[in-house]
């Protein structure tokens, strides 16, 4: 008796949702560390994933929808999709993207004067450097989602 072929089995998906407040970002780091360790990512790769997830959530908190005084705090959703070859992570906020965001920011030249040292604007650069694929979805009529992929080294991928 064959399985219903028209309804493929859903691959595993872990979802976390947190209030868009800085105090909960650390909880997401613990969660991603747990998922990634389960898949057999190296300690270094787990650290990379913690930074990338933090940056994506920081952006959702800082550039996503803001809540007025007396209104509900908006939520940020972080979805994890472990696959044999790696891990998809999708960070979604309820905001709207007014303009195209470039993910191809080149590494800036080392600043020569103190005044040129950047104090912000490094989040997407870090994400792009730490992850193997990054896609941004959104626009004026859809929630903003940052979709990131980190590949498992081939040797380790047999573990998951």
């Amino acid at each position: 008796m064959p399985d219903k072929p028209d309804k493929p089995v859903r691959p595993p998906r872990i979802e976390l949702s947190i209030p868009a407040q800085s105090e909960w970002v650390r909880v997401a780091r613990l969660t991603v560390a747990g998922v990634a360790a389960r898949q057999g990512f190296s300690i270094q790769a787990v650290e990379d994933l913690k930074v990338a997830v933090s940056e994506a959530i920081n952006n959702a908190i800082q550039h996503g929808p803001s809540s007025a005084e007396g209104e509900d705090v908006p939520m940020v959703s972080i979805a994890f999709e472990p696959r044999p070859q790696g891990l998809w992570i999708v960070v979604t906020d309820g905001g709207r993207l007014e303009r195209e965001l470039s993910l191809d920011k080149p590494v800036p030249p080392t600043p020569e004067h103190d005044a040129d040292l950047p104090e912000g604007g490094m989040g997407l650069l870090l994400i792009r450097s730490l992850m193997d694929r990054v896609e941004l979805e959104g626009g004026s009529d859809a929630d903003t989602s940052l979709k990131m992929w980190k590949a498992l080294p081939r040797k380790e991928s047999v573990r998951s």
Partner: protein
Amino acid sequence: MDLKWRIKPWGEATLVELEGEVDLHSAPPLKAALLEVGSAQSARIALDLNGVSFLDSTGIGALVGVYKKTREGKGQIVFFGARPRVKRVFQIAGLWNALPFYESRDAALAVLLPAPLVTLPETPVPAEGEAHAG
């Protein structure tokens, strides 16, 4: 309790030890505490990063902000003890060579102080801080 800091006078300089995670939540109070030290005229600060188990771009932003402010006041600030994971983040941001990072405390303090003071015994702790749920 993500992040604690401890501010110790060290001869003419100030040693600041960090312990914990520097992120969107803990970076602002850390920056405020460091600015208080760094905004003094000719401040000399050594920031111990050994205890930093996590740092993201908001942590970079805070340290760069303090660095600039300290230099504006003709002061000097140096960093030491960054773990590989912290070094990696500064490297990707293109700032590892733009900021004064040192391997050891002695190397960092030697930049700030005349040689004999480097091995000064520890003095009592005058100030501590902590970033936690608001």
